[in-house]
């Protein structure tokens, strides 16, 4: 048993660090540190920088422009970029559609779409949830009816993150009402410039506008845009839920969040001493840190097993639940640490106004707290994850 990286892994880590020191724009890390949201341009800039080094999709195979990273390398890359305050890679193309096409896509689809993800030609978003089908994807109703060489899509998707920036959407659509509800679902690629698509932003209580409703009215999609076979969408969705989730625990985000929280709390005075010296605050901070130290190792154990080729079990569900609880705990303690500075409503909209209230670290505490309530809701709610874990261990 050895908790250290191998010499090769250390060398890779150093390589990533050196690259970040050289190439990560300070403008972007500053924005991240202040909790200000990134623009589409910011994301594109960072993607292009990574792609120039071949690291935008390092876990893809080399023949498709990746590096063939194993789970440990991928983990190292994620930890280093997060620790350096780099923007996260927008996941929809690189982390979600890419692996789906690699596993289930036709050669033509791979040849067409994968390079366009890497070079930024296409910006993808995800069309899974519907108003009546959040955690219960099997009951989705957005339907695609075959009409010659096309599917005609009608219905509504919701919670489409960054849909306002996207020019393509991958959707789960109903292609059959026969059999079990999950048997009639297909995975479809849709160009958002197709007539009949409308995107409406949803404003959230933190003031953000990152999620959207997407409406489809008689949208004609070429049959060639079907991924895998018709009615195979459930298999594809499940694949994404259990594979390709090395970062599901969000250890990097949690570590960076905890570090930021500590910095901020040290600067808040509480009855004449730094808040970090209030024993009750210190206790809550310590409990989070102790839990995070363990979760980081749980995560590494899973990563290490994945790198050794072991099939994923309920571990990704366990990491999702614990990881989101911890991150929300950090967000809550940051809101607590902000004290009265949590009161001003400082939404994204105020960003440019340069008139934020209170010390820098406190300004986004409340908005982040509310925004990250989503962590335990989306990507399979924590209740659904616990159902999955229980099913796997109880075998009932």
């Amino acid at each position, binding site marked *: 048993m050895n908790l250290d990286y191998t010499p090769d892994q250390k060398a890779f880590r150093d390589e990533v660090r050196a690259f970040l020191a050289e190439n990560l724009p300070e403008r972007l890390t500053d924005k991240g540190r202040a909790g200000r949201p990134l623009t589409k341009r910011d994301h594109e800039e960072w993607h292009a920088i990574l792609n120039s080094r071949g690291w935008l999709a390092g876990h893809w195979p080399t023949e498709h422009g990746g590096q063939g990273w194993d789970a440990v390398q991928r983990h190292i890359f994620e930890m280093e970029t997060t620790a350096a305050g780099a923007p996260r890679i927008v996941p929809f193309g690189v982390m979600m559609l890419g692996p789906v096409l690699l596993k289930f896509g036709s050669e033509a689809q791979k040849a067409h779409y994968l390079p366009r993800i890497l070079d930024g030609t296409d910006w993808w978003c995800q069309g899974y949830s519907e108003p009546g089908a*959040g955690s219960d994807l099997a009951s989705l109703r957005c339907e695609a009816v075959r009409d010659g060489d096309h599917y005609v899509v009608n219905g509504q998707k919701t919670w489409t993150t960054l849909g306002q920036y996207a020019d393509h959407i991958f959707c789960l659509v109903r292609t059959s009402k026969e059999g079990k509800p999950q048997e009639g679902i297909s995975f479809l690629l849709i160009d958002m410039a197709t007539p009949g698509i409308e995107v409406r932003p949803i404003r959230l209580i933190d003031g953000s506008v990152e999620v959207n409703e997407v409406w489809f009215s008689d949208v004609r999609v070429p049959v060639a845009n079907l991924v895998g076979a018709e009615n195979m969408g459930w298999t594809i969705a499940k694949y994404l839920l259990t594979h390709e989730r090395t970062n599901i625990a969000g250890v990097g985000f949690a570590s960076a969040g905890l570090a930021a929280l500590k910095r901020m709390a040290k600067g808040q005075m509480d009855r004449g001493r730094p808040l970090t010296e209030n024993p009750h605050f210190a206790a809550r901070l310590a409990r989070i840190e102790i839990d995070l130290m363990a979760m980081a190792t749980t995560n590494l154990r899973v990563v290490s097993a994945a790198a050794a080729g072991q099939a994923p079990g309920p571990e990704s569900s366990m990491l999702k639940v614990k990881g989101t609880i911890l991150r929300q705990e950090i967000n809550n303690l940051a809101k*607590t640490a902000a004290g*009265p500075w949590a009161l001003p409503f400082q939404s994204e909209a105020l960003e440019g106004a340069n008139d934020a209230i209170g010390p820098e670290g406190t300004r986004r505490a409340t908005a982040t707290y509310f925004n990250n309530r989503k962590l335990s809701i989306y990507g399979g709610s924590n209740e659904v994850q616990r159902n999955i874990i229980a099913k796997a261990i109880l075998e009932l």
Partner: protein
Amino acid sequence: MDFSLTDEQRMLQDGLRRLLTSGGTWDAVAEMGVIGMLLPEEKGGYGGAGSDLMVVFEEIGRAGSDLPLIDTGVLGAGLLAAAGQDVDDVLAGGARIALAHAEPGSRYDLAHVETRAEENVDGWRLTGRKSVVVDAPNATRLLVTARPEDHAPIALFEVDPKALDLRGYPLTGGGEAAEIALDATPATLLWADADAMLADTHARATLAISAEALGLMESIRALTVDYLRTRKQFGRPIGKFQVLQHRMADLLIEIEQARSAVVNLAGHIDTPDRDRHVAATKNLVGEVARLVVEDSIQMHGGIGVTEEYDLGRLAKRLSMVDHRFGDTLHHLERFIELSA
């Protein structure tokens, strides 16, 4: 032992609930006599019992109202009356008062006042910074605390809000506040030794905001129960899932605990044991508020965090209760000190 309301309180409750449901304005609420219910007779009001405050603010919370009743009614009118001022006009709704007491570094410490008061031939002048002064952008009267010198008692002043450098902004969950810079600002001295009256009005404000939190919890509970009964997933109302049933049962239990904590504080607001109950109640209400906010959003799923659905606004208001008049940590420590 009697936990029931008086007939008058019940009328007040009914009337206020009806008024707020139909979007009661500041003037309408004042006209109903609500502000006067917050002060006892000896201070010019016609209420002022702990249970009066509980009734009024539970309704404010239930409606999710952001009327600045705490600021004008409990703090403002309370301090003016304690300083021997006539408050008839205030009780009639003729003024909106903000209290500029907290400062950028004071957090929840009432005693932390660095703003300096200097007296010269023209009268008093104040210099310093006041922070997150709730309702200041709308205030017609502004009360300000300052010290003539280090370690001197805190003194209470009035300042003309129009004469001020005031930077207003919206608050999470509704209402407004301002950062205020005082730079030799002319002021009128109201009371030279205001520590006790500040402690007293803040104890009453803590009762008020705790009762408001309780009302918010009740509204959120009702919304959530309704959602569990009507929203369907996996082919049945989500309220049929045992995990959500039990979580809702636990919420209900904790909301009853919060109600009892507010009752305790209301019953002890004029007793020697007041401060220990202030600490206990605010701590418990803060803990329960967090649970209610987080679990109700979780049970709603995504819709719980959208602006168009009512839960979000109520949850934000409830979550902000922990950031006024001391949070759970502050009051936990206070309770330990007062119990030693």
